[in-house]
């Protein structure tokens, strides 16, 4: 490999660092990745900073401040390919719960001096601000999928990452359906594949960490969830987590919130 190695940058916006940590978590493959790219900007791994432009940029986190929005525009300008990683960057993350509430009230509850705070009323995905070349889902992202995305971009091919439901992965693995056979509420039928159907493999229901699948239809899952004893408020709560602002999930918990209103 005499050709110049592509420059990789990893940036962080409003997030917990868990997704970029997944890259460091690729213990066995990390050396191969480090050999294939020049790590030009990755503060979690090294304080050595190489100036842009970058060939491949990974962005973690959502936009919650005007400052980050501006920073993101600069990142985009310096990046040939920009890939967003994780629920924050692709859907706004758990902090997007503010989109459905009063952020000023949140600030008053949490901070002694909310007047020192400069924050936006919403938490929005990166793609709402700049053009994105690929979105990798998950809270956190799956390290095998992260490697696949890096591999695909380095080899100039599309990533082989399905947008089907978790159910298809359960069935390929031969995992017995926790919802049908055990009566455990599960978001698998509406959730994007990616984790390898982890929770059902341990006889737990899916939490929806990877957000809605391409065909997600939460309204059709509602009768099954309520039949298993979930109240409508509890069903709404299931969708108001890491991917609360992903359109299909947001539509479901907001539609249930509206139904609740007359009684409250």
């Amino acid at each position: 490999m005499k050709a110049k190695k592509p420059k990789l940058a990893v940036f962080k916006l409003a997030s917990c660092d868990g997704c970029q940590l997944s890259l460091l978590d690729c213990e066995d493959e990390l050396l191969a990745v480090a050999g294939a790219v020049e790590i030009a900007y990755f503060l979690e791994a090294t304080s050595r900073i190489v100036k842009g432009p970058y060939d491949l940029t990974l962005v973690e986190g959502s936009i919650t401040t005007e400052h980050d929005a501006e920073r993101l525009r600069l990142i985009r300008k310096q990046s040939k390919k920009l890939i967003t990683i994780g629920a924050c960057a692709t859907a706004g993350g758990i902090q997007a719960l503010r989109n459905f509430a009063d952020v000023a009230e949140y600030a008053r509850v949490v901070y002694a001096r909310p007047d020192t705070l400069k924050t936006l009323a919403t938490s929005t995905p990166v793609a709402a601000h700049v053009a994105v070349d690929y979105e990798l889902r998950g809270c956190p992202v799956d390290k095998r999928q992260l490697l696949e995305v890096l591999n695909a971009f380095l080899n100039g091919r599309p990533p082989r990452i399905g947008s089907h439901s978790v159910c298809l992965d359960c069935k390929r693995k031969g995992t017995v359906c926790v919802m049908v056979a055990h009566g455990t509420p599960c978001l698998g039928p509406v959730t994007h594949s990616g984790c390898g159907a982890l929770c059902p493999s341990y006889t737990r229901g899916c939490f929806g960490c990877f957000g809605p699948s391409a065909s997600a239809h939460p309204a059709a899952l509602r009768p099954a969830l309520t039949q298993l004893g979930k109240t409508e408020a509890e069903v709404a709560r299931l969708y108001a987590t890491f991917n609360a602002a992903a359109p299909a999930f947001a539509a479901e918990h907001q539609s249930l919130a509206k139904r609740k209103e007359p009684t409250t």
Partner: protein
Amino acid sequence: MDIWLLPRARLGELIATLRARGYDVVAPTPRDGAIVYDTIESDADLPIGLGDEQSPGRYRMVARGDAAVFGYAVGPTSFKRNFHVPTERLYRVERVGGALRFVPEPVAARKVALLGARGCDLVALRSLDRVLQGDRYRDERYAARRSDVVLIAVHCGTPSASCFCTSMGTGPRASGPWDLALTELTTGQHRFIVETGSAMGLTLVRELGLRAAGTLDKIHAAKVPIAAAESITRRLETDALGARLAQNLDHPRFAKVAERCLACTNCTQVCPTCFCTTVEDHTELDGSAAERHRRWDSCFDLEFSYIHGGPVRPSVRARYRQWLTHKLSSWHEQFGSSGCVGCGRCITWCPAGIDITEEAREVGSPRKAEKTT
């Protein structure tokens, strides 16, 4: 055809004999709250005293209150996954100098004995045989895995509320070819009445030294699938069904079922005849090699019909229609039979509880269609 008696206490010997002959014995076994088909080592692995309750979208494994071994209805797995495997590498391509070297993935030789196959399971397997090795488009990987298989059927005495094999003509009595067919009798001495259907079956019976079954036992055994048939209440009217469905492709029922359908792919994955796959290519990080993998796929997945520019069936309505009409209508033209064996798996394992017999009945009623359009 002679009929033999196998005492329950000697069932383990049948399994041991098959294993001694080098066969992996794939049979019902309880796992994670369901009776699944998997490789077993002895009769202790069978679902002893276990049964099930099934209804649309619901399955519970339950204690039967007796020691029956085959006292359940089919569970979420089918024998399909032994031959048409869920995920496999097809080949690897390596760069050698300036050329590409293709290295096909060999199929591991595996002799398989299917113990406890129901009538619906066997018809499903024949249907898959027709699709995957029945004409010039042969799937050699499937054919290799299917090449040395012993079929030991069990005539069904315990259908579930989801079953409708009587409508599809696939059970509860298991029609041949099979090597052996067992009927379980639990009243009195726990025993199996054994029919032989091949030289292999006869060899197994001789090896075990079974004695002939008595006349009364033969009568008791014959009654088991008859009683099972009488207990099946779910029906699908198959008369001209394919044509009736094909005439009603714009039926409003498809839009209605799309409101309930999750497009989660469960029905297709539990179906013993659904055979669709996708291929995925992977590369080494440095581009020195690539691999092609094949995985089970589903016509309910949005990407399944993706071609340049977008998916051919973007709506769930279109995808449900594709599945229903392929299974019950166009399968006839393509493969000369119905694609449905009436096992009821798609009904039980649909999280939304959608019932194929109900949807087919609605779509297949032309007069209703005219009224509602």
